[in-house]
């Protein structure tokens, strides 16, 4: 299978700072993969994913999206295939009403007006935005603004959906919406990249995690492998979900636990297997 995103020796240095925000990273992402990107604040997560839609161009190295080198492409051209939900919704929203905001993307894709409206309706239903449709995006709360940001990309149905910290600072209900979104995108066969500090979310929804530290890609593996790697976790000051930590401890103590549990359900089945023995 052709990778949908291919990164070759990517380095990015911002023109203002002398910081190397991303160092010599190479990786491939296949269509349909659900990938988490983790790392401390300032480790280069946003910088890395902004390359996939061309908002940033490599200082050196190459980024190939859908078989095309992004260097000569404009953001507008890539945006038909790649949707990026900004970390800060204030940088994403610009229209006068939420409705216009949701319709802006699909209109640019030259869809017929009834298709645009249908997509807006679907997004409104999915993200529960009924009450907000006629409001100015600046007049609604930050967490809701973030949902509107996601919805505005969702209406475009991009092949690659990038979420930059979708759950940071969100209450339980909006967080649940993010879960539903990622699961729905997975079912529809989209490729998803999710930058997050929320390990519980990632443990549940992603197949693969990229771990960044000071601009280096230090690990690229399944969540189970990443969470089990004590050195990686402590050197990046990340902590696995509590249930995973518990299962790791129990495995150390009684080696009868076969697998590392990522969720409560998995833990329950491990305990059942253990007590059956």
């Amino acid at each position, binding site marked *: 299978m052709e990778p949908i995103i291919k990164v070759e020796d990517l380095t990015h240095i911002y023109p203002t700072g002398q910081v190397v925000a991303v160092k010599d990273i190479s990786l491939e992402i296949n269509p349909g993969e659900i990938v988490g990107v983790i790392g401390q604040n300032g480790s280069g997560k946003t910088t890395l994913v902004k390359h996939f*839609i061309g908002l*940033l161009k490599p200082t050196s190295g190459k980024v190939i999206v859908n078989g095309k080198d992004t260097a000569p492409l404009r953001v507008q051209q890539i945006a038909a295939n790649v*949707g990026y939900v900004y970390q800060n919704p204030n*940088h994403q929203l*610009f229209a*006068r009403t939420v409705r216009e905001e949701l319709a802006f993307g699909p209109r*640019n894709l030259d869809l017929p007006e009834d298709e645009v409206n249908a997509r807006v309706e679907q997004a409104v239903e999915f993200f529960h935005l009924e009450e907000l449709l006629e409001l100015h995006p600046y007049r609604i709360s930050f967490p809701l603004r973030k949902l509107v940001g996601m919805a505005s*990309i969702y209406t475009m149905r991009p092949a690659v959906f990038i979420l930059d910290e979708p759950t940071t600072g969100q209450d339980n209900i909006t967080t649940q919406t993010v879960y539903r979104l990622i699961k729905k995108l997975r079912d529809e066969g989209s490729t998803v990249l999710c930058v997050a500090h929320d390990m519980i979310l990632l443990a549940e929804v992603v197949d693969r995690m990229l771990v960044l530290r000071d601009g280096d890609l230090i690990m690229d593996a399944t969540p189970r492998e990443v969470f089990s790697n004590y050195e990686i976790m402590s050197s990046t000051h990340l902590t696995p979900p509590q249930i995973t930590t518990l299962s790791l401890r129990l495995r150390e103590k009684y080696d009868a636990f076969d697998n590392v549990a990522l969720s409560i359900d998995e833990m329950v089945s491990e305990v059942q297997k253990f007590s059956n023995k």
Partner: protein
Amino acid sequence: MQGVVIPISMVPGDSIIHRINPLPKLAWAFGVLVISFATRNPLILSTLFVVGVILILVAQVGNAYLKVAMILFPISLTLIVLQSIAPAFPKPWTPIVSVGPFTIFQEGIYSGISMLLRIFAMTTWAMLMIMTSHPSDIFTSLQKIGMPYVLNFILTMTLQLLPILQNEFAVVLNAQKSRAMKGSGFGAILPSMVPVFVGAIERVQQLSISLESRAFGSSGHKTSYRRVRMTFWDILLIVLGIVFTAGMTYWIIVDKSLDWSETMVFHPAFAIGLVVFATLGFLAFVVIALRNVLQA
């Protein structure tokens, strides 16, 4: 993502000029402004300009200055074109040469050249002051000589609004591009102006809330984190600046022979060449600027 940033702000450095208190620099910049408006004499204006450039070089802010000058020069060229066919002089005007419906006037060329020099003399000195002084030092100094704090603050904020707007514009444009904004050219740029200004107003509202929550309106003496010292030399420089400005202005008013508008006669070929050069220069600038904006 990199927009066209006009660097009208301090360029950090440690030159003699950086170390001078902002007040004498302000006094001299203001003096040059007064003199520039008092005279049209090309020699005086170009001398002020050249001295200003030398000081810019001494302060080692030449690069930043050049960026400003490269934008200012083509724009000021329009003055030459406009003035040459419609001089800001009392009639009657002396025609030099006619090209089609346009007549180029002696007074026009004189006036165009002197306005260009005037703009450059003034801005060079103003840039020298701005690029070598920390903004808050300028305002602390102004406050010391009695400028009201609120007025001062409004000035500072206005100066900061330009970069805020530039930044806001880049943010909105990027957001729209990330949603496959179609087309390029003004059709695409114009709609993004609306959210830029709405966004800027939002920001100003937030600013006023955060100001009030930090007791901006309260009365009493405001202190400043940065201290500005005034040495004997600074005071001497201010006095010299005032004397120089007063002296020059007096000379300009008294000595009528400084008005060269009659005596400095331009050859028709020179006049046409200058006007053509100015037109082409300005058009080239517009084309380049548009291309930069549209590619952004």
